């Protein structure tokens, strides 16, 4: 036996060495060669000679743009995983009984969907944009710590494998190591008492993703503070970088706390400590620790999307962002207030009513800076020269979804309303309007807006518009149905819903579940079109030869990142370029004398 094992080990070693050498020599693989991508390795006129070719380049890169692309690819894969999980769940919910799966598998999908979308899609897709564009927008050569940047990204794939591990190990181990069924909130005592080792793997993966996010956040703070170009200071820092800075500060305070709480939970699970035991520290302690991280996490996920929309929307409205500084100060206000609202997730846990009232007060206060932004976006559109491009459509859809998602949130901040709607589909509808309706919409807007810079190609416009309309209609059908289901009393997290008629109207609930599933199918079709568009346009789309593909110069809206792109194009043509950091091109409009003519967009 020992001899066989040794032989297998040697064979595996030889195989790995062979694969490695094959990969390192495989230079003919279609290289990523956008003009904006700076370098493909090998002999190109505009590349960095030091960058290797093929896959080795991607495994060893420390270029912030490459790492941004890697984050984007990773986020997209996670989005597909999370989307597939939820489609299975929605199909199960078409009818009240257990039709295509049992509760255990539904619970696994539910857990995986939540954690994947928040930690493996949401945070990384934002990091994709911030990695690629923050250094360009602030005139930095790269991130402050390029290697830490690379490490932060490369922690994510193992994190994802650990989080998803149970799905792969369950069939191999006869369900001994099954996927976690804890929901993304991992409430104790459930999560502490489930003996399944898959939960430990998931917790370790989550911990790793938190380390990754924290490293990234430290890097962004250092970059924005210390690497700005000579002519970029706090007064003309762009709005996207402001939101990334605030987000990074939130990550810095929130994620280490999650990490600590996860370690405590793992100790409870494996070493018989009693941090969260009913007779020990109490399950409520877990909820306090989790939500002290969890609520800032919401703003970690929505502040940069707000920044993206604040950056992109004015470009297609032909007006600079109305009340730029209002948006900056309200972003900072949200950052601070987000740490004073966590217990609004715990109104029904029986905590002291006086303490509950304070959390309600701060939750109502945080609605103001959020609403201020909405009014700023609407006012930016007012009397603007609006061009309904795909990025602009997604920005407008973002605002529309935020109005519904935000206002339903204000209702939930009110204790009496929350006590009625807690743990129903109303809550699920509310936060999906935020995470899908805002985060994903802003990501789509940014992907389309910057697609020419990242790929050097232009996407197919009709497909992009089909993607928007299917996403907008699908989102609103699905999540509005959720709100109604919540009013009908449908509890969240259940795989079946065979109600006694005395508790809830089964026929209506079934109908709205079917409407929600139909909406989810529409959404899925939209996302398939999106994927097809991005991939086929990359291979076959028309090459962008103009540094101003959006005609922003005409409106005085030519931003720093497109100035950089234009310089890259000129450099590719062998022209001389001025490497000095250029300031934003947001010139004031005629008759607009109310603001100083500074970089306000």
């Amino acid at each position: 036996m020992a001899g066989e094992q040794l032989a297998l080990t040697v064979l595996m070693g030889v195989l790995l060495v062979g694969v490695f050498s094959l990969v390192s020599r495989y230079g003919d693989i279609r290289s990523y060669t956008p003009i904006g991508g700076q370098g493909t390795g090998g002999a190109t006129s505009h590349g960095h000679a030091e960058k290797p070719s093929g896959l080795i380049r991607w495994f060893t890169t420390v270029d912030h743009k490459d790492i941004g692309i890697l984050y984007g690819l990773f986020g997209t894969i996670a989005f597909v995983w999370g989307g597939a999980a939820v489609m299975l769940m929605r199909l199960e919910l078409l009818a009240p009984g257990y039709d295509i799966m049992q509760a255990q598998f539904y619970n696994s999908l539910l857990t995986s969907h939540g954690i994947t979308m928040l930690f493996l899609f949401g945070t990384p897709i934002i990091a994709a944009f911030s990695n690629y564009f923050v250094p360009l927008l602030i005139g930095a050569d790269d991130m402050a710590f390029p290697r830490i940047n690379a490490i932060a990204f490369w922690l994510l794939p193992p994190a994802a494998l650990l989080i998803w591990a149970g799905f792969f190990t369950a069939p191999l181990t006869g369900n001994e190591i099954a996927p976690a069924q804890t929901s993304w909130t991992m409430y104790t005592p459930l999560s502490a008492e489930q003996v399944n080792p898959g939960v430990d793997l998931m917790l370790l993966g989550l911990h790793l993703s938190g380390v990754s996010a924290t490293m990234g956040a430290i890097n962004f703070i250092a970059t924005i503070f210390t690497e700005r170009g000579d002519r970029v200071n706090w007064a003309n820092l762009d709005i996207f970088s402001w939101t990334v800075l605030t987000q990074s500060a939130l990550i810095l305070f929130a994620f280490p706390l999650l990490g600590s709480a996860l370690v405590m939970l793992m100790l409870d699970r494996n070493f018989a400590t009693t941090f969260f035991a009913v007779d020990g520290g109490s399950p409520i302690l877990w909820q306090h620790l989790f939500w002290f991280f969890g609520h800032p996490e919401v703003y970690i996920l929505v502040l940069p999307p707000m920044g993206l929309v604040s950056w992109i929307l004015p470009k297609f409205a032909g007006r600079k962002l109305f009340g730029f500084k209002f948006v900056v100060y309200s972003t900072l206000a949200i950052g601070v207030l987000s740490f004073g609202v966590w217990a609004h997730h715990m109104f029904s846990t029986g905590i002291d009513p006086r303490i509950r009232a304070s959390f309600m007060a701060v939750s109502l206060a945080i609605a103001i800076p959020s609403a201020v932004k909405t009014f700023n976006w609407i006012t930016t559109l007012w009397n603007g020269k609006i061009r309904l491009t795909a990025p602009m459509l997604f920005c407008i859809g973002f605002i529309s979804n935020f109005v519904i998602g935000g206002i339903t949130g204000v209702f939930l901040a009110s204790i009496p309303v929350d006590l009625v709607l807690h743990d129903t589909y109303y809550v699920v509808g509310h936060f999906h309007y935020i995470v899908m309706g805002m985060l994903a919409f802003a990501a789509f807007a940014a992907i389309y807006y910057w697609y020419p810079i990242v790929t050097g190609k232009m996407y197919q416009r009709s497909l992009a518009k089909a993607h928007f309309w299917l996403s907008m209609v699908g989102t609103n059908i699905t999540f509005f149905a959720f709100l109604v289901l919540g009013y009908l009393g449908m509890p969240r997290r259940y795989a079946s819903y065979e109600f006694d008629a005395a508790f809830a109207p089964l026929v209506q609930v079934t109908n709205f579940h079917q409407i929600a599933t139909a909406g989810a199918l529409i959404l899925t079709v939209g996302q398939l079109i999106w994927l097809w568009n991005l991939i086929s346009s990359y291979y076959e789309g028309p090459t962008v030869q103009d540094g101003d593909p959006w005609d922003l110069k005409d409106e005085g809206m030519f931003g720093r990142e497109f100035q950089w792109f234009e310089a890259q194009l000129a450099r590719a043509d062998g022209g001389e370029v001025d490497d000095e950091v250029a300031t934003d091109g947001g010139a004031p409009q005629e008759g607009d004398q109310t603001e100083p003519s500074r970089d306000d967009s």
Partner: protein
Amino acid sequence: MDRDSRTFDRDTLLDLTVNLIPLGIMLFFVVVFLFVNPFGEDRTATLIQMTILVLTFLALTVLTYVSGKVISDSEKELEEMDGIVVSEKVGLDQQPSEEPTEGQSEAGSSD
């Protein structure tokens, strides 16, 4: 008072009002909770109740003041730098080339 000797000019103060509203809401509830207490006496709970509001209030006040000060100082710095007053125009002047690009494809136009 001399304009330069003030911490914030009028425009900055106007910008900062955006954060006065949430501060006002929190202050309102502090006062309400001091005078209206339908849940009975409990010093510990009341202390925690007030701490949550007061700490958040103070944190937002400090952050608003500091960020307002930093941004306002940076504005003055920009004004003192030559040519930055009209920063957007400077950005446009620095474009490497205003010549029409060769063979602008259909892709080059907007959506």
